[in-house]
Protein backbone atom coordinates (compact mmCIF):
# COMPACT_ATOMS: atom_id res chain seq x y z
CA UNK A 1 0.00 0.00 0.00
CA UNK A 2 2.74 2.46 1.01
CA UNK A 3 4.74 1.49 -2.07
CA UNK A 4 1.73 2.16 -4.26
CA UNK A 5 1.10 5.49 -2.54
CA UNK A 6 4.72 6.56 -3.05
CA UNK A 7 4.59 5.46 -6.67
CA UNK A 8 1.44 7.54 -7.34
CA UNK A 9 2.97 10.53 -5.52
CA UNK A 10 6.04 10.26 -7.72
CA UNK A 11 3.87 10.14 -10.86
CA UNK A 12 1.93 13.20 -9.60
CA UNK A 13 5.17 15.10 -9.00
CA UNK A 14 6.43 14.19 -12.47
CA UNK A 15 3.14 15.40 -13.95
CA UNK A 16 3.38 18.68 -12.05
CA UNK A 17 6.92 19.16 -13.35
CA UNK A 18 5.81 18.46 -16.93
CA UNK A 19 2.89 20.89 -16.53
CA UNK A 20 5.22 23.57 -15.12
CA UNK A 21 7.53 23.21 -18.11
CA UNK A 22 4.54 23.18 -20.50
CA UNK A 23 3.18 26.37 -18.88
CA UNK A 24 6.58 28.07 -19.23
CA UNK A 25 6.76 27.02 -22.88
CA UNK A 26 3.22 28.32 -23.45
CA UNK A 27 4.06 31.67 -21.79
CA UNK A 28 7.21 32.02 -23.93
CA UNK A 29 5.28 31.11 -27.09
CA UNK A 30 2.32 33.42 -26.49
CA UNK A 31 4.05 36.44 -24.93
CA UNK A 32 7.35 36.46 -26.83
CA UNK A 33 6.85 34.55 -30.08
CA UNK A 34 3.30 35.74 -30.89
CA UNK A 35 3.04 38.81 -28.65
CA UNK A 36 5.39 41.76 -28.53
CA UNK A 37 7.03 41.14 -25.15
CA UNK A 38 10.81 41.22 -24.95
CA UNK A 39 11.03 39.44 -21.59
CA UNK A 40 11.92 35.77 -21.99
CA UNK A 41 10.75 33.30 -19.37
CA UNK A 42 14.36 32.48 -18.53
CA UNK A 43 15.46 36.08 -17.94
CA UNK A 44 15.83 36.91 -14.26
CA UNK A 45 14.26 40.37 -14.66
CA UNK A 46 10.87 38.82 -15.38
CA UNK A 47 10.59 37.48 -11.82
CA UNK A 48 10.41 40.58 -9.63
CA UNK A 49 8.27 41.56 -6.65
CA UNK A 50 4.47 41.52 -6.66
CA UNK A 51 3.17 44.39 -8.89
CA UNK A 52 1.05 46.99 -7.11
CA UNK A 53 -1.87 46.32 -9.47
CA UNK A 54 -2.11 42.76 -8.11
CA UNK A 55 -1.90 43.67 -4.42
CA UNK A 56 -2.22 47.23 -3.12
CA UNK A 57 -0.76 46.20 0.25
CA UNK A 58 2.88 45.05 0.28
CA UNK A 59 2.78 41.30 -0.23
CA UNK A 60 5.30 38.60 -1.04
CA UNK A 61 4.33 36.13 -3.77
CA UNK A 62 4.00 33.44 -1.11
CA UNK A 63 1.62 35.54 1.00
CA UNK A 64 -0.46 36.61 -1.98
CA UNK A 65 -0.83 33.06 -3.26
CA UNK A 66 -1.77 31.86 0.22
CA UNK A 67 -4.53 34.48 0.62
CA UNK A 68 -5.91 33.84 -2.89
CA UNK A 69 -5.66 30.03 -2.51
CA UNK A 70 -7.71 30.16 0.71
CA UNK A 71 -10.44 32.11 -1.11
CA UNK A 72 -10.49 29.64 -4.03
CA UNK A 73 -10.36 26.65 -1.68
CA UNK A 74 -13.49 28.04 0.03
CA UNK A 75 -15.33 27.94 -3.32
CA UNK A 76 -14.03 24.46 -4.17
CA UNK A 77 -15.06 23.14 -0.74
CA UNK A 78 -18.60 24.18 -1.63
CA UNK A 79 -18.55 23.09 -5.28
CA UNK A 80 -16.84 19.69 -5.35
CA UNK A 81 -18.80 17.94 -2.53
CA UNK A 82 -22.07 19.37 -3.95
CA UNK A 83 -21.26 18.09 -7.44
CA UNK A 84 -20.31 14.65 -6.14
CA UNK A 85 -23.30 14.42 -3.82
CA UNK A 86 -25.83 15.57 -6.40
CA UNK A 87 -24.12 13.74 -9.27
CA UNK A 88 -23.92 10.33 -7.59
CA UNK A 89 -27.25 10.37 -5.73
CA UNK A 90 -29.33 11.75 -8.61
CA UNK A 91 -27.39 9.69 -11.16
CA UNK A 92 -28.11 6.47 -9.25
CA UNK A 93 -31.78 7.46 -8.86
CA UNK A 94 -31.97 8.30 -12.57
CA UNK A 95 -30.48 4.95 -13.57
CA UNK A 96 -32.79 3.07 -11.17
CA UNK A 97 -35.85 4.71 -12.75
CA UNK A 98 -34.43 4.71 -16.27
CA UNK A 99 -37.70 3.53 -17.79
CA UNK A 100 -39.13 6.98 -16.93
CA UNK A 101 -35.99 8.71 -18.34
CA UNK A 102 -35.49 10.27 -14.93
CA UNK A 103 -31.74 10.85 -15.35
CA UNK A 104 -32.38 13.42 -18.07
CA UNK A 105 -35.17 15.06 -16.08
CA UNK A 106 -33.01 15.33 -12.97
CA UNK A 107 -30.05 16.69 -14.93
CA UNK A 108 -32.21 19.15 -16.91
CA UNK A 109 -32.26 22.09 -14.42
CA UNK A 110 -28.48 21.93 -14.04
CA UNK A 111 -27.96 21.50 -17.79
CA UNK A 112 -30.14 24.53 -18.50
CA UNK A 113 -28.23 26.56 -15.91
CA UNK A 114 -24.96 25.37 -17.51
CA UNK A 115 -26.04 27.05 -20.78
CA UNK A 116 -26.06 30.41 -19.00
CA UNK A 117 -22.63 32.05 -19.33
CA UNK A 118 -21.13 32.32 -15.82
CA UNK A 119 -20.00 35.92 -16.38
CA UNK A 120 -23.56 36.94 -17.29
CA UNK A 121 -24.81 35.40 -14.04
CA UNK A 122 -22.34 37.71 -12.25
CA UNK A 123 -23.92 40.69 -14.04
CA UNK A 124 -27.41 39.56 -13.02
CA UNK A 125 -26.30 39.26 -9.39
CA UNK A 126 -24.81 42.79 -9.58
CA UNK A 127 -28.02 44.23 -11.08
CA UNK A 128 -30.16 42.48 -8.48
CA UNK A 129 -27.98 43.56 -5.57
CA UNK A 130 -27.94 47.18 -6.78
CA UNK A 131 -31.68 47.55 -7.31
CA UNK A 132 -32.53 45.73 -4.05
CA UNK A 133 -29.71 46.68 -1.69
CA UNK A 134 -28.16 49.70 -3.51
CA UNK A 135 -24.80 47.86 -3.51
CA UNK A 136 -23.58 46.48 -6.86
CA UNK A 137 -21.35 43.44 -6.40
CA UNK A 138 -19.91 42.15 -3.16
CA UNK A 139 -19.88 44.27 -0.03
CA UNK A 140 -16.09 44.30 0.12
CA UNK A 141 -16.02 47.25 2.51
CA UNK A 142 -17.68 45.20 5.25
CA UNK A 143 -15.19 43.44 7.55
CA UNK A 144 -16.24 40.71 9.96
CA UNK A 145 -14.30 41.31 13.15
CA UNK A 146 -15.81 38.72 15.48
CA UNK A 147 -17.11 35.18 15.07
CA UNK A 148 -17.01 33.05 11.92
CA UNK A 149 -16.58 34.97 8.66
CA UNK A 150 -19.98 34.08 7.23
CA UNK A 151 -19.79 36.94 4.72
CA UNK A 152 -16.79 35.29 3.00
CA UNK A 153 -18.70 32.00 2.80
CA UNK A 154 -21.72 33.82 1.33
CA UNK A 155 -19.50 35.36 -1.37
CA UNK A 156 -17.93 31.96 -2.06
CA UNK A 157 -21.36 30.33 -2.38
CA UNK A 158 -22.49 32.92 -4.96
CA UNK A 159 -19.34 32.25 -7.01
CA UNK A 160 -19.79 28.50 -6.55
CA UNK A 161 -23.31 28.38 -7.97
CA UNK A 162 -22.56 28.81 -11.72
CA UNK A 163 -19.41 26.68 -11.42
CA UNK A 164 -21.44 23.86 -9.91
CA UNK A 165 -24.27 23.79 -12.46
CA UNK A 166 -22.47 22.43 -15.51
CA UNK A 167 -20.37 19.96 -13.55
CA UNK A 168 -23.41 18.55 -11.71
CA UNK A 169 -25.34 18.05 -14.97
CA UNK A 170 -22.37 16.20 -16.50
CA UNK A 171 -21.87 14.05 -13.37
CA UNK A 172 -25.55 13.01 -13.17
CA UNK A 173 -25.56 11.91 -16.82
CA UNK A 174 -22.19 10.14 -16.57
CA UNK A 175 -23.15 8.18 -13.40
CA UNK A 176 -26.52 7.22 -14.89
CA UNK A 177 -24.86 6.16 -18.18
CA UNK A 178 -22.37 3.86 -16.36
CA UNK A 179 -25.15 2.18 -14.37
CA UNK A 180 -27.50 1.90 -17.35
CA UNK A 181 -24.72 0.21 -19.34
CA UNK A 182 -24.10 -2.20 -16.46
CA UNK A 183 -27.78 -3.13 -16.18
CA UNK A 184 -28.01 -4.01 -19.89
CA UNK A 185 -25.32 -6.70 -19.64
CA UNK A 186 -26.17 -10.35 -20.10
CA UNK A 187 -25.63 -11.38 -16.43
CA UNK A 188 -28.76 -9.40 -15.46
CA UNK A 189 -30.97 -11.87 -17.36
CA UNK A 190 -29.37 -14.71 -15.43
CA UNK A 191 -30.35 -13.13 -12.12
CA UNK A 192 -33.89 -12.49 -13.40
CA UNK A 193 -34.22 -16.13 -14.40
CA UNK A 194 -32.90 -17.13 -10.96
CA UNK A 195 -35.77 -15.13 -9.40
CA UNK A 196 -34.00 -11.98 -8.16
CA UNK A 197 -36.09 -8.82 -8.24
CA UNK A 198 -35.25 -5.38 -9.69
CA UNK A 199 -33.97 -3.85 -6.46
CA UNK A 200 -31.74 -6.79 -5.53
CA UNK A 201 -30.16 -6.78 -8.97
CA UNK A 202 -29.69 -2.99 -9.12
CA UNK A 203 -28.50 -2.21 -5.58
CA UNK A 204 -27.00 -5.59 -4.69
CA UNK A 205 -25.28 -6.51 -7.97
CA UNK A 206 -25.10 -3.71 -10.54
CA UNK A 207 -23.75 -0.96 -8.25
CA UNK A 208 -20.96 -3.12 -6.71
CA UNK A 209 -19.99 -4.36 -10.19
CA UNK A 210 -19.88 -0.79 -11.55
CA UNK A 211 -18.03 0.55 -8.48
CA UNK A 212 -14.65 0.89 -10.22
CA UNK A 213 -16.21 2.67 -13.22
CA UNK A 214 -18.12 4.96 -10.84
CA UNK A 215 -14.94 5.70 -8.89
CA UNK A 216 -13.17 6.66 -12.12
CA UNK A 217 -15.68 9.53 -12.51
CA UNK A 218 -14.66 11.13 -9.19
CA UNK A 219 -12.12 13.59 -10.59
CA UNK A 220 -13.53 14.11 -14.09
CA UNK A 221 -15.44 17.37 -13.45
CA UNK A 222 -12.70 18.98 -11.32
CA UNK A 223 -10.66 20.35 -14.24
CA UNK A 224 -13.80 21.85 -15.81
CA UNK A 225 -14.80 23.41 -12.44
CA UNK A 226 -11.34 24.96 -11.97
CA UNK A 227 -11.37 26.21 -15.58
CA UNK A 228 -14.77 27.83 -15.12
CA UNK A 229 -13.57 29.51 -11.89
CA UNK A 230 -10.98 31.45 -13.91
CA UNK A 231 -13.79 33.30 -15.70
CA UNK A 232 -16.36 33.41 -12.91
CA UNK A 233 -13.97 34.76 -10.25
CA UNK A 234 -12.90 37.52 -12.65
CA UNK A 235 -16.52 38.38 -13.44
CA UNK A 236 -17.43 38.61 -9.75
CA UNK A 237 -14.09 40.34 -8.94
CA UNK A 238 -13.70 37.61 -6.31
CA UNK A 239 -10.14 37.66 -4.91
CA UNK A 240 -9.22 34.05 -5.70
CA UNK A 241 -6.54 32.27 -7.72
CA UNK A 242 -8.61 32.47 -10.93
CA UNK A 243 -8.85 36.26 -10.84
CA UNK A 244 -5.15 36.50 -9.84
CA UNK A 245 -4.32 34.41 -12.91
CA UNK A 246 -6.35 36.63 -15.28
CA UNK A 247 -4.92 39.84 -13.75
CA UNK A 248 -1.39 38.44 -14.08
CA UNK A 249 -1.98 37.63 -17.76
CA UNK A 250 -3.28 41.17 -18.33
CA UNK A 251 -0.18 42.62 -16.64
CA UNK A 252 2.20 40.12 -18.26
CA UNK A 253 3.50 39.08 -14.83
CA UNK A 254 5.16 35.69 -15.41
CA UNK A 255 5.49 34.65 -11.73
CA UNK A 256 1.80 35.42 -11.15
CA UNK A 257 0.76 33.41 -14.21
CA UNK A 258 3.02 30.48 -13.38
CA UNK A 259 2.16 30.29 -9.68
CA UNK A 260 -1.59 30.72 -10.15
CA UNK A 261 -1.70 28.19 -13.04
CA UNK A 262 0.35 25.64 -11.09
CA UNK A 263 -1.79 26.07 -7.96
CA UNK A 264 -4.98 25.57 -9.98
CA UNK A 265 -3.46 22.58 -11.79
CA UNK A 266 -2.27 21.27 -8.41
CA UNK A 267 -5.89 21.20 -7.19
CA UNK A 268 -6.84 19.06 -10.22
CA UNK A 269 -3.78 16.90 -9.62
CA UNK A 270 -4.79 16.24 -5.98
CA UNK A 271 -8.25 15.15 -7.18
CA UNK A 272 -6.64 12.84 -9.76
CA UNK A 273 -4.32 11.38 -7.13
CA UNK A 274 -7.22 10.72 -4.75
CA UNK A 275 -9.17 9.03 -7.55
CA UNK A 276 -6.20 6.84 -8.44
CA UNK A 277 -5.76 5.81 -4.80
CA UNK A 278 -9.47 5.06 -4.37
CA UNK A 279 -9.61 3.14 -7.67
CA UNK A 280 -6.59 1.03 -6.67
CA UNK A 281 -8.36 -0.04 -3.46
CA UNK A 282 -11.40 -1.35 -5.38
Amino acid at each position, binding site marked *: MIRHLLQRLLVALA*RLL*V*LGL*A*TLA*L*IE*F*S*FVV*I*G*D*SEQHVWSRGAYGAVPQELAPDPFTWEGLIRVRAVATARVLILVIPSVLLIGYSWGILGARLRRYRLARLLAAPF*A*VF*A*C*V*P*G*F*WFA*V*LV*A*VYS*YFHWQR*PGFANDLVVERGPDLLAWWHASVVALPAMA*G*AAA*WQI*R*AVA*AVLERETTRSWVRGYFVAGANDEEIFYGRAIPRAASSLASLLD*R*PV*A*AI*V*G*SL*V*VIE*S*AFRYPGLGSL*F*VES*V*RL*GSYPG*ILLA*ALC*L*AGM*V*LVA*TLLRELISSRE
Partner: protein
Amino acid sequence: MINRRPSRWLRSLSLIAIRLWQLRRVLVLVMLYFSLFGWLFSGDRAGDVRPTELYGIRETPRWREPDRDHWCGTAVNGADLFELSRFAMATSVSVAVVAVSAGIALALLLTMLVVFDPEENRFAWIERLSATGVILPGMIVMVILTGGGGGGLLLVIPGLASLVALMISPLLCRWFREGEDGFEIVAARVLGLSRREIVLGRVLPSVLRRLPGVFAILVPVAMLAEMSLSFLGFAGDRLSVGVMIARGQAYLIEAPWMAIYPGLFASVVVMAFSLLGWRVSAALRTGPLPPLF
Protein backbone atom coordinates in the same frame (compact mmCIF):
# COMPACT_ATOMS: atom_id res chain seq x y z
CA MET B 1 -48.39 -9.53 -63.52
CA ILE B 2 -48.03 -10.72 -59.93
CA ASN B 3 -44.60 -12.24 -60.54
CA ARG B 4 -43.28 -9.21 -62.40
CA ARG B 5 -40.04 -7.93 -60.75
CA PRO B 6 -39.84 -4.20 -60.01
CA SER B 7 -37.43 -2.23 -62.19
CA ARG B 8 -33.94 -1.36 -60.97
CA TRP B 9 -34.93 2.30 -60.63
CA LEU B 10 -37.94 1.45 -58.52
CA ARG B 11 -35.85 -0.76 -56.26
CA SER B 12 -33.23 1.96 -55.83
CA LEU B 13 -35.94 4.50 -55.03
CA SER B 14 -37.54 2.22 -52.47
CA LEU B 15 -34.13 1.57 -50.88
CA ILE B 16 -33.47 5.32 -50.66
CA ALA B 17 -36.93 5.85 -49.14
CA ILE B 18 -36.28 3.13 -46.55
CA ARG B 19 -32.88 4.62 -45.69
CA LEU B 20 -34.38 8.11 -45.32
CA TRP B 21 -37.14 6.69 -43.10
CA GLN B 22 -34.48 5.03 -40.91
CA LEU B 23 -32.63 8.34 -40.64
CA ARG B 24 -35.79 10.42 -40.09
CA ARG B 25 -34.87 11.58 -36.58
CA VAL B 26 -31.36 12.64 -37.58
CA LEU B 27 -32.73 14.40 -40.69
CA VAL B 28 -35.27 16.39 -38.66
CA LEU B 29 -32.49 17.42 -36.26
CA VAL B 30 -30.19 18.38 -39.14
CA MET B 31 -32.98 20.52 -40.64
CA LEU B 32 -33.53 22.22 -37.28
CA TYR B 33 -29.79 22.77 -36.99
CA PHE B 34 -29.59 24.39 -40.40
CA SER B 35 -32.69 26.51 -39.69
CA LEU B 36 -31.00 27.84 -36.55
CA PHE B 37 -27.83 28.58 -38.53
CA GLY B 38 -29.88 30.25 -41.27
CA TRP B 39 -31.73 32.45 -38.79
CA LEU B 40 -28.51 33.53 -37.06
CA PHE B 41 -26.75 34.38 -40.31
CA SER B 42 -29.77 36.03 -42.02
CA GLY B 43 -30.69 39.70 -41.80
CA ASP B 44 -28.67 42.85 -42.15
CA ARG B 45 -24.98 42.26 -41.44
CA ALA B 46 -23.63 44.84 -39.05
CA GLY B 47 -20.38 44.62 -41.04
CA ASP B 48 -17.20 45.92 -39.52
CA VAL B 49 -18.84 47.26 -36.38
CA ARG B 50 -16.45 47.74 -33.42
CA PRO B 51 -17.45 47.56 -29.73
CA THR B 52 -15.79 50.93 -29.05
CA GLU B 53 -18.21 52.62 -31.49
CA LEU B 54 -21.23 50.99 -29.87
CA TYR B 55 -20.34 51.44 -26.23
CA GLY B 56 -18.05 54.49 -26.26
CA ILE B 57 -19.01 57.11 -23.65
CA ARG B 58 -20.88 60.07 -25.26
CA GLU B 59 -22.12 63.38 -23.94
CA THR B 60 -25.62 62.68 -25.21
CA PRO B 61 -26.14 58.92 -25.26
CA ARG B 62 -28.77 57.70 -27.75
CA TRP B 63 -29.74 54.53 -25.89
CA ARG B 64 -33.40 53.54 -25.60
CA GLU B 65 -35.15 51.18 -23.22
CA PRO B 66 -36.65 47.95 -24.64
CA ASP B 67 -39.95 48.70 -26.42
CA ARG B 68 -42.05 47.36 -29.28
CA ASP B 69 -39.56 48.51 -31.95
CA HIS B 70 -36.43 47.42 -30.12
CA TRP B 71 -37.12 44.25 -28.10
CA CYS B 72 -33.76 44.36 -26.35
CA GLY B 73 -33.33 48.14 -26.31
CA THR B 74 -30.49 49.94 -28.06
CA ALA B 75 -26.76 50.47 -27.49
CA VAL B 76 -25.13 53.82 -26.64
CA ASN B 77 -25.05 54.86 -30.32
CA GLY B 78 -28.70 53.85 -30.86
CA ALA B 79 -28.06 50.52 -32.68
CA ASP B 80 -30.62 47.77 -32.08
CA LEU B 81 -29.26 45.32 -29.46
CA PHE B 82 -31.27 42.34 -30.78
CA GLU B 83 -29.67 42.61 -34.23
CA LEU B 84 -26.25 43.23 -32.70
CA SER B 85 -26.64 40.18 -30.44
CA ARG B 86 -27.64 38.08 -33.44
CA PHE B 87 -24.60 39.26 -35.37
CA ALA B 88 -22.34 38.60 -32.36
CA MET B 89 -23.78 35.11 -31.84
CA ALA B 90 -23.31 34.31 -35.54
CA THR B 91 -19.60 35.10 -35.10
CA SER B 92 -19.41 32.92 -31.96
CA VAL B 93 -21.15 30.05 -33.75
CA SER B 94 -18.78 30.37 -36.74
CA VAL B 95 -15.73 30.29 -34.46
CA ALA B 96 -17.10 27.28 -32.55
CA VAL B 97 -18.00 25.34 -35.72
CA VAL B 98 -14.58 25.91 -37.35
CA ALA B 99 -12.65 25.16 -34.14
CA VAL B 100 -14.59 22.00 -33.27
CA SER B 101 -14.42 20.67 -36.86
CA ALA B 102 -10.67 21.29 -36.99
CA GLY B 103 -10.23 19.71 -33.55
CA ILE B 104 -12.14 16.57 -34.48
CA ALA B 105 -10.19 16.29 -37.76
CA LEU B 106 -6.90 16.68 -35.87
CA ALA B 107 -7.91 14.05 -33.31
CA LEU B 108 -8.87 11.64 -36.10
CA LEU B 109 -5.55 12.28 -37.84
CA LEU B 110 -3.62 11.64 -34.61
CA THR B 111 -5.49 8.41 -33.99
CA MET B 112 -5.14 7.22 -37.59
CA LEU B 113 -1.37 7.66 -37.33
CA VAL B 114 -1.17 4.75 -34.91
CA VAL B 115 -4.28 2.73 -35.69
CA PHE B 116 -2.53 0.37 -38.16
CA ASP B 117 0.29 -0.34 -35.73
CA PRO B 118 0.03 -4.06 -34.81
CA GLU B 119 1.20 -3.51 -31.21
CA GLU B 120 -1.31 -4.02 -28.40
CA ASN B 121 -0.58 -0.71 -26.61
CA ARG B 122 -0.38 1.46 -29.74
CA PHE B 123 -2.71 4.12 -28.29
CA ALA B 124 -0.79 4.40 -25.00
CA TRP B 125 1.15 7.59 -25.84
CA ILE B 126 -2.01 9.42 -26.92
CA GLU B 127 -3.80 8.39 -23.73
CA ARG B 128 -0.80 9.36 -21.55
CA LEU B 129 -0.50 12.73 -23.28
CA SER B 130 -4.20 13.42 -22.81
CA ALA B 131 -4.20 12.23 -19.17
CA THR B 132 -1.39 14.68 -18.35
CA GLY B 133 -2.75 17.47 -20.57
CA VAL B 134 -6.23 17.52 -19.04
CA ILE B 135 -4.78 18.31 -15.60
CA LEU B 136 -4.08 21.86 -16.81
CA PRO B 137 -7.64 23.16 -17.40
CA GLY B 138 -8.34 24.19 -20.99
CA MET B 139 -9.45 27.69 -20.00
CA ILE B 140 -6.04 28.35 -18.41
CA VAL B 141 -4.28 27.35 -21.64
CA MET B 142 -6.61 29.54 -23.71
CA VAL B 143 -6.20 32.58 -21.43
CA ILE B 144 -2.38 32.37 -21.57
CA LEU B 145 -2.41 31.83 -25.34
CA THR B 146 -4.85 34.60 -26.21
CA GLY B 147 -3.85 37.01 -23.42
CA GLY B 148 -0.16 36.84 -24.24
CA GLY B 149 -0.64 36.79 -27.99
CA GLY B 150 -2.90 39.84 -28.10
CA GLY B 151 -6.16 38.00 -28.79
CA GLY B 152 -7.89 37.62 -32.14
CA LEU B 153 -9.62 34.81 -33.98
CA LEU B 154 -6.36 33.48 -35.41
CA LEU B 155 -5.37 32.47 -31.88
CA VAL B 156 -8.77 31.48 -30.50
CA ILE B 157 -9.61 29.00 -33.28
CA PRO B 158 -6.33 27.00 -33.31
CA GLY B 159 -6.25 27.04 -29.49
CA LEU B 160 -9.77 25.65 -29.17
CA ALA B 161 -9.08 23.12 -31.95
CA SER B 162 -5.95 21.80 -30.20
CA LEU B 163 -7.80 21.44 -26.90
CA VAL B 164 -10.68 19.60 -28.59
CA ALA B 165 -8.16 17.28 -30.28
CA LEU B 166 -6.39 16.59 -26.97
CA MET B 167 -9.66 15.74 -25.21
CA ILE B 168 -11.27 13.75 -28.02
CA SER B 169 -8.35 11.61 -29.22
CA PRO B 170 -8.49 9.12 -26.26
CA LEU B 171 -12.21 8.69 -26.94
CA LEU B 172 -11.48 7.87 -30.60
CA CYS B 173 -8.77 5.43 -29.47
CA ARG B 174 -11.35 3.71 -27.26
CA TRP B 175 -13.86 3.49 -30.12
CA PHE B 176 -11.23 1.98 -32.44
CA ARG B 177 -10.23 -0.52 -29.74
CA GLU B 178 -13.85 -1.49 -29.02
CA GLY B 179 -14.55 -1.73 -32.75
CA GLU B 180 -11.70 -4.16 -33.28
CA ASP B 181 -12.90 -6.39 -30.44
CA GLY B 182 -16.40 -6.89 -31.90
CA PHE B 183 -17.76 -10.31 -32.85
CA GLU B 184 -18.04 -9.54 -36.58
CA ILE B 185 -14.41 -8.38 -36.62
CA VAL B 186 -13.30 -11.71 -35.15
CA ALA B 187 -15.34 -13.39 -37.88
CA ALA B 188 -13.71 -11.18 -40.52
CA ARG B 189 -10.27 -12.17 -39.20
CA VAL B 190 -11.21 -15.85 -39.38
CA LEU B 191 -12.37 -15.29 -42.96
CA GLY B 192 -8.90 -13.94 -43.80
CA LEU B 193 -9.46 -10.20 -44.17
CA SER B 194 -6.33 -8.14 -43.58
CA ARG B 195 -6.04 -5.69 -40.69
CA ARG B 196 -6.11 -2.75 -43.12
CA GLU B 197 -9.33 -4.05 -44.74
CA ILE B 198 -10.97 -4.56 -41.36
CA VAL B 199 -10.04 -1.12 -40.01
CA LEU B 200 -10.90 0.81 -43.18
CA GLY B 201 -13.97 -1.20 -44.15
CA ARG B 202 -15.57 -1.96 -40.76
CA VAL B 203 -14.18 -0.02 -37.81
CA LEU B 204 -13.55 3.41 -39.38
CA PRO B 205 -17.12 3.83 -40.78
CA SER B 206 -18.61 3.05 -37.35
CA VAL B 207 -16.28 5.65 -35.73
CA LEU B 208 -17.06 8.25 -38.41
CA ARG B 209 -20.80 7.71 -37.94
CA ARG B 210 -20.53 8.86 -34.32
CA LEU B 211 -18.48 12.00 -35.01
CA PRO B 212 -21.45 14.29 -35.87
CA GLY B 213 -22.71 13.57 -32.34
CA VAL B 214 -19.36 14.69 -30.88
CA PHE B 215 -19.49 17.81 -33.06
CA ALA B 216 -23.04 18.66 -31.99
CA ILE B 217 -22.20 18.29 -28.29
CA LEU B 218 -18.98 20.31 -28.48
CA VAL B 219 -20.23 23.31 -30.50
CA PRO B 220 -22.19 24.94 -27.60
CA VAL B 221 -19.27 24.27 -25.22
CA ALA B 222 -16.86 25.99 -27.62
CA MET B 223 -19.33 28.87 -28.01
CA LEU B 224 -19.34 29.41 -24.24
CA ALA B 225 -15.53 29.25 -24.17
CA GLU B 226 -15.25 31.83 -26.96
CA MET B 227 -17.74 34.15 -25.24
CA SER B 228 -15.85 33.81 -21.93
CA LEU B 229 -12.57 34.75 -23.61
CA SER B 230 -14.15 37.77 -25.27
CA PHE B 231 -15.69 38.80 -21.91
CA LEU B 232 -12.19 38.76 -20.39
CA GLY B 233 -11.00 40.88 -23.34
CA PHE B 234 -8.74 38.21 -24.86
CA ALA B 235 -10.55 37.58 -28.14
CA GLY B 236 -9.64 40.74 -30.04
CA ASP B 237 -11.47 43.94 -30.90
CA ARG B 238 -14.56 42.54 -32.59
CA LEU B 239 -18.20 42.26 -31.64
CA SER B 240 -19.03 39.29 -29.42
CA VAL B 241 -21.64 38.72 -26.74
CA GLY B 242 -18.88 38.55 -24.12
CA VAL B 243 -17.61 41.99 -25.15
CA MET B 244 -21.17 43.38 -25.23
CA ILE B 245 -21.78 42.22 -21.65
CA ALA B 246 -18.37 43.41 -20.44
CA ARG B 247 -18.91 46.85 -21.98
CA GLY B 248 -22.54 46.96 -20.87
CA GLN B 249 -21.42 46.59 -17.25
CA ALA B 250 -20.26 50.22 -17.36
CA TYR B 251 -23.91 51.30 -17.75
CA LEU B 252 -25.36 48.82 -15.25
CA ILE B 253 -27.23 51.49 -13.30
CA GLU B 254 -28.39 53.84 -16.08
CA ALA B 255 -29.07 51.25 -18.80
CA PRO B 256 -29.04 47.70 -17.35
CA TRP B 257 -30.62 46.19 -20.49
CA MET B 258 -27.31 46.63 -22.34
CA ALA B 259 -25.74 43.89 -20.20
CA ILE B 260 -28.87 41.82 -19.52
CA TYR B 261 -30.44 41.22 -22.95
CA PRO B 262 -27.33 40.12 -24.92
CA GLY B 263 -26.67 37.54 -22.18
CA LEU B 264 -30.27 36.34 -22.32
CA PHE B 265 -30.03 36.04 -26.11
CA ALA B 266 -26.74 34.10 -25.83
CA SER B 267 -28.18 31.75 -23.17
CA VAL B 268 -31.21 30.93 -25.36
CA VAL B 269 -29.05 30.27 -28.44
CA VAL B 270 -26.57 28.10 -26.48
CA MET B 271 -29.51 26.23 -24.96
CA ALA B 272 -31.02 25.59 -28.41
CA PHE B 273 -27.68 24.28 -29.72
CA SER B 274 -27.21 22.14 -26.59
CA LEU B 275 -30.68 20.60 -26.88
CA LEU B 276 -30.09 19.81 -30.55
CA GLY B 277 -26.64 18.48 -29.67
CA TRP B 278 -28.01 16.09 -27.05
CA ARG B 279 -30.68 14.83 -29.46
CA VAL B 280 -28.14 14.31 -32.27
CA SER B 281 -25.78 12.57 -29.85
CA ALA B 282 -28.59 10.31 -28.59
CA ALA B 283 -29.72 9.50 -32.14
CA LEU B 284 -26.16 8.55 -33.17
CA ARG B 285 -25.40 6.81 -29.83
CA THR B 286 -22.24 8.79 -29.26
CA GLY B 287 -22.25 8.24 -25.49
CA PRO B 288 -21.10 10.70 -22.80
CA LEU B 289 -18.07 12.88 -23.58
CA PRO B 290 -15.51 14.10 -21.04
CA PRO B 291 -16.20 17.61 -19.68
CA LEU B 292 -14.19 20.27 -21.52
CA PHE B 293 -12.72 23.64 -20.49
